[in-house]
């Protein structure tokens, strides 16, 4: 420790300083990448809708950070941070949103709906709840092969109402699968407040119906989310089965960029702005002497540089060529038939 700095307190949750900074890096990267996307969206360079995770980056990054190589997570639309932690590259995300030929799905799927099972993430489909059974199957494969790997799946408060969520978590629970289910209690499902979605106050109690542990954590407290997730992940890894974690947070933006948020109270948004997970994390780092503003600024600058480069790298990439439109519907046959009225 250099003389003159605040004496650092012990870092909790078994993390070291480097890891703390890495978490900061991912928080910043997530937020800044989304801000870049907003710019591109305003320039009409994003093809479809844009979905923000403003105010939720903390839980997304921290929970993913609790996984190890070989583990697999399945993100939702607001879990960009979790994918970046697993190794997805900003340029891939940009290319996806802009439907570039060079994007991970070759322009076939939108936003963060893409996978890298080696790195450890499986993009969602739109139908809410469906990823829970699928991730139960991935966890099942770990169990059948006696691998010490863990699956993690995110579900919104709204999506807990879907039948597939129920079937999947129950399946995982009764088969005692190494799966962690993170329920993001962010106050809304599109315009619908959580109180119109379910009659429970604490979504963690839903665990009781499946006979698994359920825990609630402050979703805007990065280290708390990390710790709770790590405990659940490591319990799953040693055969302790499935856990449900409720992260309590708030969706500060509308459902998507076009949403006017008429149904959200301005006061509430402001209140949660004061509870921003990134701000809180920075404060924790500084207060405890784990990082100073110089080092954080350096990370910010690194993020800015990376994103400048990422945007530059892909902005002029072409859209997919029509030659790729029909391939890979099946492994075999390798291409769908080009219809007769389209023959050259």
């Amino acid at each position, binding site marked *: 420790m250099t003389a003159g700095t605040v004496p650092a307190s012990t870092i909790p949750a078994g993390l070291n300083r480097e890891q703390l900074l890495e978490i900061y890096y991912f928080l910043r990267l997530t937020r800044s990448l989304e801000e870049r996307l907003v710019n591109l969206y305003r320039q009409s360079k994003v093809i479809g809708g844009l979905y923000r995770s403003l105010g939720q980056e903390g839980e997304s990054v921290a929970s993913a950070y609790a996984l190890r190589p070989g583990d697999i997570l399945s993100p939702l639309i607001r879990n960009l941070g979790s994918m970046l932690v697993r190794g997805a590259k900003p340029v891939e995300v940009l290319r996806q949103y802009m*439907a570039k030929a060079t994007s991970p799905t070759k*322009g076939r799927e939108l936003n963060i709906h893409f996978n890298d099972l080696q790195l450890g993430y499986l993009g969602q489909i739109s139908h809410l*709840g469906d990823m829970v059974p699928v991730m139960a199957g991935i966890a099942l494969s770990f169990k059948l092969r006696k691998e010490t790997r863990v699956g993690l799946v995110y579900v919104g408060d709204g999506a807990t109402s879907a039948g597939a969520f129920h079937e999947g978590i129950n399946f995982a629970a009764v088969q005692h699968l190494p799966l962690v289910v993170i329920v993001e209690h962010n106050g809304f*499902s599109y*315009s619908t407040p959580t109180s119109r979605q379910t009659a429970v106050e604490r979504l963690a109690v839903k665990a009781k119906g499946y006979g698994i542990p359920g825990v609630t954590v402050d979703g805007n407290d990065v280290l708390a989310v990390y710790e709770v997730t790590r405990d659940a992940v490591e319990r799953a890894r040693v055969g302790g089965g499935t856990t449900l974690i409720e992260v309590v947070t708030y969706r500060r933006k509308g459902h998507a960029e076009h949403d006017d948020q008429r149904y959200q109270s301005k006061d509430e948004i402001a209140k949660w702005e004061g509870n921003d997970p990134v701000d809180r994390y920075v404060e924790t780092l500084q207060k405890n002497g784990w990082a100073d503003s110089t080092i954080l600024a350096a990370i910010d600058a690194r993020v800015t540089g990376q994103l400048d480069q990422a945007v530059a790298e892909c902005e002029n990439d072409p*859209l*997919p060529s029509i030659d*790729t*439109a029909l391939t890979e519907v099946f492994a075999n046959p390798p291409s769908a038939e080009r219809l007769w*009225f389209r023959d050259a």
Partner: protein
Amino acid sequence: MPELTYLEALRQGMWEEMARDERVFILGEDVGIYGGAFKVTEGFFEKFGASRVIDTPISEAAIVGAAAGAAHMGLRPVAEMQFIDFISCAYDMLTNYVATARYRAGLSTPIVVRGPSGGFVRGGPFHSQMPEAAFFHTPGLKLVAPATVRDAKGLIKAAIRDDDPVIYLEHKFLYRRIKENIPEGEDIITPIGKARIAREGKDLTIVTYSAMVWKSLEAAEQIEKEDGASVEVIDLRTLLPMDDAAIIASVKKTNRALVVHEDTRTGGIAGEIIARINEQAFEWLDAPVMRVTAHDTPIPYAPTLEDFVLPQAQDVVKAARWLLAY
């Protein structure tokens, strides 16, 4: 005479039915204060109140199931699917519970399930689907798919008044893109089961529905202008029960037929239409009945790919010319 969009006509139709008949109510995700993802039910919550405009959990099976239960008791629920793609989550409830209710158990289930269908809006694989083929196959369901502003209104009103379950497929590409003058206060009812001749012609019949009506009309005009051939366009409006008589009468007149739909080729409802033409007008056919459809893939997101996969007006032109030259 106010000019309405397709979406406004749909909204007006629902509004009039709710005002007319207190048994009618709406349920779905975000249909209340927010007025629905596409604002189809904007203003309904304020006008008709929380007990007739019900925001539900994300539970398509429960939405449809609850609608069915309420319908058994004499109510007239209109259930919104936020995107019609999510109707797949209610597939069991619709095909097994709802469709069979009258036949197996004498139950009346007058529900309407409606939602935005179709592509051309860069929605990707899960916000662009045409679901009709999956439900077309189940006896007991009616299916309507308006192409015009007038029918958007007339069919929603007819669907709400119908004593059978009706799936109403609105096309999201048309929502704000087409307009029509609709006389105020006219109680427009488009009869379910009746097709419409969207354009008269004598050399070729195009059978189509929903947004493809417009692409077909565009093609027909181009052919008229450039080739001097006259193309009849039949807008089915109702897919089930299908108006065989209208289709067959036209084919017997033109002796050539082309079926155009936005859905994928394999298993799309064009197959059924072709089978019916073949069964009922074989002797009148001077050429095979052909189809212009989407390719057999999911709907991709990138504009280049989506435009390639989905059928376009020029495809209709090309197929029509092929048939005219046959």
